[in-house]
């Protein structure tokens, strides 16, 4: 959010004017309650509420319910949002916004490498994601490795530094998973594997080493610190979830086999052939984060990618999320993924849960985000229509009680629509004079 957006916020909410975000500065959570009145609320947990009230305070959801039975706190700022729809902030389980990477070409398995150390928090891709209603994203390194590094679960706050975007777990650690891949992307020249069986063998060998490392720690031995094995130990202890790129049906089953063998928790990502092995995925009780693209192909293993994967997995009882894989698909069109799922037969409820609550579950964040429930983070989007309609636009995106995107503000609209200057890095400081710029 930039200067005029900030001014708009100031005008609307004088009560916490001094606490409102400035561009690139971390925000404090406004203490004055704000009541959003008259919207259709889609809480995801529970049925939609027509003509509802959503009260946010201190960055959390304080109240939610129908207008006639939900009192508006005294002193609250009241926003009349009749005619709009409010959804929980969208959760993208697989994104590459921020231009980060992790592992290099030196090895196929690099658990010690963190995407944290490479993300550019001023990349305009963050603004585009806000414009698409995304409030939390699992930002991942690529799929060119068997294991390319540690991922980050980020809140897309208007941040200046990467620290402004981090999510802390209840234990104080930085929330994130680990990225793995199989199939063709991670098959390359040595030291990378050349076949599928070699790929699995390399992974298995490294996990066996991690098991030994964990055992030494348990025995009270003091093995030399190994950052990679430390990260894999978190995977083995089920603290750190594996986000596993996989397309072909047999590759999917290889992931399930390895997960069972080593007892790690896994989310299957992309899952192009998931419709062929939906029963097996369901039996393993493993959730799927799926991609929807406008045509099959691009590589051999994406030949059978289908709009109907979501339906097939839903029918089999598999928990499903969608993801943008931004830049593969555009974060501003994330809700379109859910709509394409419905086009191919997925239920509307599951499709909406697949971009909110189910996605939050896959990141172990469902106690904090993913639905409109009292006590959860005040992360939500204001839409001007049916969430699954192509004609519906995101009007505003709020994170922890702070508006981070406002379509009525010129600068934010630049991110939402594109245009001259939209490709530039976001100016981090206040001295940027938008009146004299080329924008």
């Amino acid at each position, binding site marked *: 959010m930039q200067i005029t957006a900030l001014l708009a916020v100031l005008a609307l909410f004088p009560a916490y004017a001094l606490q409102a975000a400035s561009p690139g500065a971390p925000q404090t959570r406004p203490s004055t309650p704000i009541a959003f009145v008259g919207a259709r609320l889609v809480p995801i947990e529970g049925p939609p509420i027509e003509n509802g009230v959503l009260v946010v305070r201190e960055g959390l959801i304080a109240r939610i319910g129908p207008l006639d039975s939900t009192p508006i706190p005294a002193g609250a700022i009241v926003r009349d949002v009749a005619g709009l729809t409010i959804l929980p902030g969208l959760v993208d389980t697989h994104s590459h916004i921020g231009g980060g990477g992790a592992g290099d070409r030196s090895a196929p398995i690099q658990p010690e490498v963190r995407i944290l150390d490479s993300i550019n928090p001023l990349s305009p891709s963050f603004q585009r994601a806000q414009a698409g209603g995304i409030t939390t994203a699992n930002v991942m390194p690529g799929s060119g490795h068997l294991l390319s590094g540690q991922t980050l679960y980020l809140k897309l706050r208007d941040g200046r530094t990467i620290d402004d975007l981090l999510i802390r777990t209840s234990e104080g650690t930085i929330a994130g998973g680990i990225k793995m891949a199989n199939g063709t992307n991670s098959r390359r020249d040595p030291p990378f594997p050349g076949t599928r069986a070699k790929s699995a063998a390399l992974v298995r060998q490294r996990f066996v080493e991690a098991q030994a490392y964990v055992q030494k720690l348990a025995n009270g031995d003091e093995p030399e610190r190994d950052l990679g094995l430390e990260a894999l130990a978190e995977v083995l202890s089920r603290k750190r979830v594996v986000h596993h790129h996989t397309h072909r049906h047999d590759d999917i089953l290889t992931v399930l086999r390895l997960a069972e063998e080593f007892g790690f928790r896994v989310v299957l990502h992309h899952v192009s052939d998931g419709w062929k092995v939906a029963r097996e995925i369901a039996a393993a009780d493993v959730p799927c984060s799926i991609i929807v693209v406008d045509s099959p192909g691009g590589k051999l293993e994406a030949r059978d990618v289908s709009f109907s994967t979501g339906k097939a997995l839903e029918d089999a009882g598999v928990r499903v999320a969608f993801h943008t894989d931004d830049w593969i698909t555009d974060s501003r069109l994330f809700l379109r993924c859910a709509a394409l799922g419905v086009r191919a037969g997925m239920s509307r409820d599951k499709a909406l849960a697949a971009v909110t609550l189910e996605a939050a579950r896959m990141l172990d964040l469902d106690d904090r985000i993913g639905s409109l429930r009292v006590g959860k983070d005040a992360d939500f989007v204001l839409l001007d229509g049916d969430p699954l309609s192509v004609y519906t636009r995101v009007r505003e995106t709020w994170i922890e009680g702070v508006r981070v995107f406002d379509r009525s503000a010129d600068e934010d609209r630049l991110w939402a629509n594109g245009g001259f200057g939209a*490709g530039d890095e976001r100016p981090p400081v206040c001295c940027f004079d938008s009146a004299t710029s080329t924008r």
Partner: protein
Amino acid sequence: MSAHAVLAALAALAFPLAPSTAAQELVVRGRVVYTMAGPPIQNGVVWIRDGKIVAVGPAADIELPSGLETLSAAVVTPGLVDAHSVVGLAGWQNLPHVSDQLENSAPIQPELDARDAYNPRELLIGWLRGFGVTTIHTGHAPGALVAGQTLIAKTRGDTVEEALIVPHAMVAATLGPGALRDDAPGTRSKAVALLRAELIRARAYDAKRAGDEPPDRDLRLETLARVLRRELPLLVTVHRSHDIQTALRLAREFELELVLDGAAECYLLLDEIAAAGVPVLLHPTMARANGETENLAMDTALTLATAQIPFALQSGYEPYVPKTRVVLFEAAIACAWGLPFERALASITIDAARILGIDARLGSLEVGKDGDVALFDGDPFETTNHCIGVVIEGEVVSREVR
């Protein structure tokens, strides 16, 4: 789409499952028929005989013989026209043996004939057809200063000849960073210098060919001479504002028939483009904003419409996933970003046909034109709706619910 959904749709729409015995005639009924040649017709009928439309209008006004095969849908449109694609030269895989869209052995190769690489059985052609696309302008891809020729085909046919409707449509060129190579051209200016020199050679060659002692045939110069004679438009893929200016400058110097392609920053040059009378095959609305397209805008189609610059939407070229875009979806997003519904539909039907020079034959539902029709179960642009039938020259080529 599951078999269940297909059956449900078939039942709901009363599609006859058996092919017609007399395949020469077909009737398409729509609760709304967008002819693109006048206002939409409520409760309309399109009657096709021997591949051509013989009647179109309100059902009440058209007396049909009984027993004709009839398709029905909520919304009926002309078969969609993809104004620029590489499908058929580029296959569904990103592997060399099916990637014939770009030849890198030299920067200027206008002699490359798209017919010699077009695979009419390519999987992605069927994919596009299932979403109502009946005509594609396809050929050599962006990525070389002059990449080669393009063709126009129907999305059917087992041979190139069966599919073709225009064997030589345009000559595809690229300006800006997309045209640059490790050797030459390595800069924008060098690229333009090379192209100008080649065009000047072609002009001299053309003059000599008409003279008393014609030189030996040179396919490269011969093709460029056709461009200079305005028999073939020069399709220039270009995105940055200053590169678009270069394309306009070249067109002025050589009096070319220019078609701008991609044109991410064209919104900065509306007056210049309008004054030049140049049409735009606009980048896909959902094209990725990075590199030279970093400033693309999703409402540029609306901007062009407002400026009254002729434009059409395209599926473009994708090297990875998705391997092709679908103009139906690109028009939908353009519409969602402000382009009025009928303008959006026109950008993938009649307006595309006009820029491609095939509007006398297709692009609208009018008597005498090809019986190319797309059927939808509601607003074609709404993401959750479906294309439920496709007709090419009176032949039902898809009954899938897509």
